[in-house]
C-alpha cells in the first residue's frame, strides 16, 4: 500500500516472532500477534511490560532485533517509519509547538501531497469538535483538547492502522470516559484498525473487541474481554484484569465434569472445562463479586463451594457495592464484593462469616506450582516499589 493514498479500510497487522533487545535488557521476548482488519485491539499490561515497545516497533520508531512485521500482508520490517501506512497518537501528544492546530493536523496530508489538505484538516477538527480553535497554538489548549487534536492529526491521514499509546492517560476520569466513547464511535465510523496500548484494564475492556494481556515482554492471554475476565488462564491475568481470590492445593478427586482441590482445609470444586490443568498442585480462583457472604453456616450442597468460618477484617462501602475482606484460616484474605441490594453492610468488622460460590463460577489456572501467589493489593508498599522500578525501566526504555 502506498502512503500517497488513503486507506479504504483498515489493514491486518501481523507480528511474527518479534524480539526486541536493548543494551542491558530484553523488552520483548518472543511475540506473535495477528490483529484482523477493522478491529479495535487493546494491548494491556503494567508499565515496562513491553507494550509501548511493541507499538514503536509497528510505527517503525524502533527496529526489532528479530522477527517480521506485516501490515495488510506486506512486509514492512525494513520500511522507514515515514513510509509506513501507520499513524500514532502519542502518549505525550507531541503536537508541534511552533505550528497552529490546523497546521499540525494538515502536516501529514501536506507531506503526502494530498489535495485540499486544509479542507480535510478542518473536517477532521470538526469530527473532534475543535474546528473553532484551528488558529490557536497547542500550548493554548487544555490537555483534553490537545488529546483530541492529536487524534484528529492521526485519523485525518486515514491510516490503515492507527496506534494509540495510552492517549487517555493524562485526562481526568470524566473526560477519559467521554473520549473513550468518542474513540469507539470514530473507530466504527471510519472502520480503521486500532491498536490501543494501555495499562488501564477498565479502558481496555470497555473499548476493545480483543484484549491481549502482556507481561514481561510476552502475551499471557488474548481474547474477547468477557472471555478473559470469565476464564483467566494465569494468576497474572486473573489479578491484572479485575481482582481474584486464588487458592492453591492438590487435586484430590476427578469426576467426568469436575475436579476437586484440597485447599484451605476444604474441598473446592471446579468444572473440568474451566480448569487449565487437571492434576498435581493447581491454583483455582473465583471473582470477588461471585462470592456470597453468609452470617450463619449454610448447609453444604453439591453445586456450591463453601469456605469458613472466617472473620471480617475490613469493610469498605462504595455505593453500589461493599467490599469485605475476610480472613479465612488456611486461605488467607478473601475479597468479597456484595451488591448493596438491602440497606447497610450485612456484616461488621470482626463478625464471623462463611463464604460460598457456585461451582460453575470457579476457574483453574495454568501456572506452574510455586510461581503463583497473591497479587499484591494495589496499595501495598511492595507493589508501589515494584511499579516505581518498572516505571523507571520503561523510562529508560524510551531513551
Amino acid at each position, binding site marked *: 500500500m502506498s502512503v500517497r493514498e488513503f486507506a479504504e479500510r483498515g489493514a491486518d497487522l501481523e507480528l511474527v516472532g518479534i524480539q526486541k533487545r536493548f543494551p542491558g535488557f530484553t523488552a520483548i521476548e518472543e511475540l506473535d500477534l495477528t490483529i484482523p482488519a477493522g478491529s479495535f485491539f487493546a494491548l494491556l499490561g503494567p508499565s515496562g511490560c513491553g507494550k509501548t515497545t511493541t507499538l514503536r516497533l509497528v510505527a517503525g520508531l524502533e527496529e526489532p532485533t528479530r522477527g517480521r512485521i506485516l501490515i495488510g500482508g506486506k512486509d514492512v520490517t525494513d520500511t522507514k517509519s*515515514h513510509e509506513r501506512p501507520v499513524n500514532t497518537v502519542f502518549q505525550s501528544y*507531541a503536537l*508541534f509547538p*511552533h505550528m497552529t492546530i490546523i497546521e499540525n493536523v494538515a502536516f501529514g496530508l501536506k*507531506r503526502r501531497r494530498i489535495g485540499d489538505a486544509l479542507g480535510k484538516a478542518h473536517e477532521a477538527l470538526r469530527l473532534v469538535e475543535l474546528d473553532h480553535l484551528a488558529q490557536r497554538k497547542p500550548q493554548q489548549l487544555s490537555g483534553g483538547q490537545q488529546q483530541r487534536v492529536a487524534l484528529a492529526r492521526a485519523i485525518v*491521514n486515514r491510516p490503515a492502522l492507527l496506534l494509540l499509546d495510552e492517549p487517555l492517560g493524562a485526562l481526568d476520569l470524566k473526560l477519559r470516559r467521554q473520549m473513550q466513547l468518542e474513540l469507539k464511535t470514530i473507530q466504527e465510523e471510519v472502520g480503521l484498525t486500532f491498536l490501543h496500548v494501555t495499562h488501564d484494564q477498565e479502558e481496555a475492556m470497555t473499548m476493545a473487541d480483543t484484549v491481549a494481556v502482556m507481561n514481561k515482554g510476552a502475551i499471557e492471554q488474548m481474547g474477547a474481554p468477557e472471555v478473559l475476565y470469565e476464564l483467566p488462564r494465569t494468576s497474572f491475568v486473573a489479578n491484572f484484569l479485575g481482582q481474584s481470590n486464588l487458592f492453591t492445593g492438590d487435586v484430590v478427586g476427578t469426576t467426568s465434569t469436575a475436579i476437586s482441590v484440597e485447599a484451605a482445609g476444604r474441598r473446592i470444586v471446579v468444572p473440568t472445562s474451566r480448569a487449565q490443568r487437571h492434576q498435581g498442585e493447581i491454583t483455582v480462583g473465583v471473582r470477588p463479586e461471585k462470592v456470597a457472604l453468609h452470617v450463619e453456616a449454610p448447609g453444604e450442597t453439591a453445586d456450591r463451594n463453601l469456605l469458613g468460618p472466617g472473620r471480617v477484617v475490613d469493610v469498605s462501602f462504595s455505593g453500589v457495592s461493599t467490599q469485605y475482606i475476610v480472613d479465612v484460616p488456611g486461605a488467607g484474605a478473601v475479597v468479597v464484593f456484595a451488591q448493596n441490594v438491602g440497606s447497610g453492610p450485612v456484616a461488621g468488622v470482626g463478625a464471623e462469616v462463611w463464604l460460598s460460590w457456585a461451582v460453575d463460577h470457579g476457574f483453574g489456572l495454568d501456572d506452574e506450582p510455586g510461581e503463583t501467589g497473591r497479587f499484591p493489593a494495589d496499595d501495598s508498599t511492595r507493589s508501589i516499589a515494584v511499579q516505581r522500578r518498572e516505571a523507571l525501566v520503561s523510562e529508560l526504555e524510551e531513551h
Partner: protein
Amino acid sequence: MAFAAFATTEAQPQAPKKKSRIALFLLLPGLLYLVLFFLTPLISLVLTSLQAPAEFGDIGQFDYAFNWQNYVVVVQDYLPHILRSFGYALAATVLALLFSYPLAYFIGVKARRWPLLQSLMLVLVIAPFFISFLLRTLAWKQILSDESFIITSLKALSLLAPDAHFTGTPFAVIFGLTYNFIPFMTLPLYSTLERLDTRYLEAGSDLYANPLTVFRKITVPLSMPGIVAGTLLTFIPAAGDYINASRDFLGGTDTQMMGNVIEANFLVLLNYPAAAALSIILMAAILVLVGVYVKRSGTEDLL
C-alpha cells in the same frame, strides 16, 4: 487560625510595595554602572562625532559644534570599509552556523546517551578560550603564512598555485572571524538543541515526513532561539572586529574593516569626530539589522 488569616490579609496590600522597593535597591548598582560607563560615554561619543576642527588649532584639536557633515564625509570616504565589515561578518556568521549546527546537534542530541562524551566535546569547544584570542589569531597567521609547513607542502604537491597567498586576503580574514566566533555560535545552539524533544521528530516521521523534511519543518524551527542567539553573538562582534582584519594579524591593506578605520582615525590620524561618527554608524546599523532580523525570525513564542 482566624487570627493568622486576619494577619495575612492585612499584610498583603503592603507586600508588593515593599518588594518593588527592594528590587529598585538591588537594581541601583547596575543602573549606576550603566549611567557611568555606558550612557555617559555614549553621549560623549555623539558629541564628539559632531565636533568641528578648532580654528588655528593643531592636528587632533576640535571644538564642540553641530557639524553633521562629518557623517556624510565618513560615509563617502569609508563606504567600502562599511560594506566590507558587514559582508565579512555575514560570511563568517553563515560559515560558523554551517560548521556549528552539525556539531551542536551531535553534542546536544546524538550524544545524549553518552554524557561523558557530551561533556568532553563541550570542553573541547570551550578549550580555545583558555588561550588568548590574540595568540590564537597570531598562530593562524603563522600557519597560513607563505613560508609555513602546510602551505609549502601544499604548493610542493601542486595542490596550490605557486604564487598563492593566504595572509592579507579576504579569505584569511573571514577564516579568522569564523574560527574565533565558532564557540559563540556553538554554545547557544547546543543549549537549545540539548532541550530539543526528540518525540516531535518521531511524530514528524510518523506523519510521513522524510528525515530532510523533519529537519526543515521541525528541528530548525524548534532550534530557532539558538540560531538567533548564536548568529547575533557572532555577527555583532564580528562586524566591529578589528583584530582579524588588522595588518598585524590576518588582514591586508584591502581587507580593512570598520574597526580598523575607527582605530586608525582615533589613534593614528587623530580625527576623533570621524572615528566617533563611524562608531555611531556601526552601532546604528547593527541595531537596525538585528531589529529586523529578530522581528523576521519570529522567535517570540519560542523564547
